[in-house]
């Protein structure tokens, strides 16, 4: 056979192609070995479960609670197999799971539990948790039984022991001699191998007590830009993205992904976008009729369809039905400009164009932060245009996240958008945190401040017994609804997207968890 230059070049090209394909084949084989690649909008950060800095979902991979919050507000056993609430809610007894080890081999037992509890319970820094504020003492009954006592019955007691932080458990060996946190070592299904600002790598904990994931590695890839995440999942560079706090997917992005054939899971979430009103800054809002006019002055259904592509359902309650004690359902206010104008006339705000009363114009400022609620500026623009039609001049002020954190607690707004905390903090996380005026909730600010009427209702619900708590919380819902103290806008959907490589995906029960359980990698 004669070898000419063309044959030689063809042969070289073939060899090059084979050599170039080898790493790809190797990578594919490694992929088949099992790496779940999950997108995150920011690095995992400080994962100390007793600090409040890291990404919740990543802490959930490593650290486990005594009991887990499940869909519908149920609890399932985790590091505790049984629990009893006694003495009218003043005593909580845990029976701990046996044969559980931390990643460093340290045993999980009553001693480890007490060591962890002592790092946060009863301290000022965690006084926002009822269990910590009302903590009286703890007692080790045996190696696997612990009792915790409280000064008063604790509201949302079991919920608090399912939180991602600070209620999860760190290995007692993972601290230095002074007791300072060193490494994220828990009992969870995943052990951290390494972490940088670009991402984190985790290895399956083969001595895990529960159902072990079917794949050996989990990689968290930091992709700050949501368009970058969308491109990555379509290209197959990541397997899973989503979650309100991990890597949020906007409704428009979800629709685009669906159109591109990417499996998207949309479920009713547990939080709500609510517009808070500040009558102390804008006296016009003290008038119930003005609040009612605003409530029916804009079209929630149209906004839901246009801005949220129908994925966020219009709201009339501050909690979706997925939240325990969310109350009876109120009808979603339909837009009725004529009725709204009539209400404003009755309230004394009259005139063509922007309405006036006693020489004052009916002008309202809405403060929005795109970083806090994506799409909130467009939402405010629709409210601005539609409320403008009934004679209310709406000014929009866009602020960054830091300004939002200073302006909202300082009450520098007429209307501001809030998001309720969602499970497992509900319903009392929001009821106490956002509605009780005497409770300091830091940068989140208050949705409603009404010490005269609302505070007594909140306090009554907080001290209600099991038998009366539903009635007591309903009184709060009724008051908020009747007085239009705030404007529930939309229920936030839980949106996740995964590639076809992933099967068995189920949306998590809270947006603070990472839904790796039950997942299988197909290739």
């Amino acid at each position, binding site marked *: 056979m004669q070898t000419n230059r063309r044959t030689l070049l063809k042969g070289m090209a073939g060899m090059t192609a084979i050599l170039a394909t080898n790493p790809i084949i190797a990578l594919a084989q490694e992929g088949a070995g099992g790496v779940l690649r999950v997108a995150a909008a920011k690095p995992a950060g400080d994962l100390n479960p007793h600090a409040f800095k890291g990404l919740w979902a990543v802490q959930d991979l490593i650290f486990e609670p005594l009991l887990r919050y499940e869909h519908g507000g149920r609890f399932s056993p985790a590091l505790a197999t049984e629990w009893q609430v006694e003495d009218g809610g003043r005593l909580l007894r845990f029976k701990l799971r046996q044969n559980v080890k931390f990643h460093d081999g340290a045993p999980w037992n009553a001693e480890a539990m007490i060591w962890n509890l002592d790092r946060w319970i009863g301290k000022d820094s965690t006084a926002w948790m009822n269990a910590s504020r009302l903590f009286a003492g703890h007692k080790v009954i045996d190696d696997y039984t612990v009792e915790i006592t409280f000064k008063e019955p604790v509201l949302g007691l079991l919920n608090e022991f399912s939180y991602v932080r600070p209620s999860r458990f760190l290995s007692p060996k993972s601290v230095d001699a002074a007791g300072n946190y060193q490494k994220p070592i828990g009992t969870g299904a995943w052990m951290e191998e390494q972490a940088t600002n670009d991402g984190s790598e985790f290895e399956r904990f083969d001595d895990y007590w529960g159902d072990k994931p079917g794949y050996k590695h989990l990689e968290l890839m930091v992709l700050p830009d949501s*368009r970058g995440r969308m491109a990555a999942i379509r290209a197959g560079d990541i397997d899973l993205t989503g979650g309100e706090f991990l890597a949020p997917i*906007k409704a*428009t*992005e979800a*629709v*685009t992904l669906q*159109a591109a054939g990417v499996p998207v899971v949309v479920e009713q979430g547990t939080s709500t976008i609510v517009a808070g009103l500040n009558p102390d800054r804008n006296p016009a809002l003290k008038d119930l009729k003005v609040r009612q006019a605003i409530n029916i002055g804009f*079209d929630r259904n*149209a*906004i839901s*369809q*246009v*801005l949220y592509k129908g994925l966020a359902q219009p709201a009339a309650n501050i909690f979706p039905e997925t939240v325990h004690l969310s109350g009876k359902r109120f009808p979603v206010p339909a837009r009725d400009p004529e009725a709204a104008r009539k209400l404003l006339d009755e309230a004394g705000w009259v005139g063509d164009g922007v309405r006036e009363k006693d020489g004052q114009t009916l002008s309202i400022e809405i403060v929005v932060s*795109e970083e806090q609620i994506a*799409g909130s*500026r*467009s939402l*405010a*623009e*629709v409210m*601005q*245009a*539609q409320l403008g039609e009934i004679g209310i001049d709406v*000014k*929009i*002020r*866009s*602020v*960054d996240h*830091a*300004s939002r954190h200073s302006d909202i607690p300082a009450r520098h707004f007429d209307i501001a958008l809030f998001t309720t905390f969602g499970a497992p903090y509900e319903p009392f996380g929001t009821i106490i945190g956002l509605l009780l005026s005497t409770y300091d909730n830091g940068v989140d600010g208050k949705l409603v401040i009404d010490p005269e009427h609302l505070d007594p209702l909140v306090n009554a619900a907080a001290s209600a017994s099991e038998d009366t708590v539903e009635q007591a919380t309903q009184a709060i819902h009724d008051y908020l609804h009747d007085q239009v103290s705030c404007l529930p806008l939309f229920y936030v959907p839980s949106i996740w997207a995964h590639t076809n490589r992933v099967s068995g995906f189920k949306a998590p029960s809270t947006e603070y968890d990472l839904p790796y359980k039950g997942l299988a990698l197909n290739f």
Partner: protein
Amino acid sequence: MRILQDFARSLRQLPRVSMVAVGVFVTLGVLAPYIAPHDPNAQDLLAAHAGISWEHWLGADHLGRDTLSRLIVSARTSLVGMCLVLLIALSVGITIGTIAGYKRGWVEEVLMRIVDVGLAMPSLIVALAVIGIFGTGYWNMIFALALAWWPGSARISRAVAVGVMNRPHIETLRVLGASPLRVYFHHLLPTTIGAVLVYATADAGAVALSIATLSFLGLGIQPPTPEWGQMLVDALPYLETVPMQVILPGLVLTAVVIGFNLLGESIALNRVPTPLSRRILASRRMLASNWTRAQQ
């Protein structure tokens, strides 16, 4: 008439592309309310992302607002914003630059070191810091950008002023007893303003871009005032489904920035003396020799 002819001649020397871009921008900015086919803020949620039609020549945005009308009215927003920023920045810059150039000595040293500090910081960072402190809003944005822009014009003003002050006629004026105020206001300031305005032309595009950038970040022009940067950020989530809504404001902004940059560049080049051609050189030599002969 001669002034008009001179103006027309100088226009002919400028690149046509930049003249068209800047001319269209200024015309749209001035006439925006009269030529926009729709109210730029009128929403029709049912027509959200409507395509090109007789009703909406360039389609509608995510809230059903007419894109063409918003592009046209945005030109006015940018034009007014740009003029205000340059007016404030140049006023401050020229004042400080000319004082430094006139007084020299320690006054110049102090003022120029302040200018150096201003120039050392990127303009957008300065603007973001100012907005971070004083909050968002139209006037805060204008003052933030003006604060970021004045050091550049101060530096140029000082250089021009020093050149002017070294000219023989200024020295003659002083010898003849002209007051400092007369020298400053009648001779130094007008000459410096003329020169600095030329450089400001090139800055105009950058200012328009900064206004769009701040609005893109949600820190500049607030809704419902239409603005190109805001149109861009509103359309970005729909980049795949309705790309035209992203491309259009981007394209217009690019055309305006390139237009101003080319214009500024060509004006600056027109001011550089071009070497004399052989023919003109020969004729001037001839003139000079005749004049010398006549003197003899």
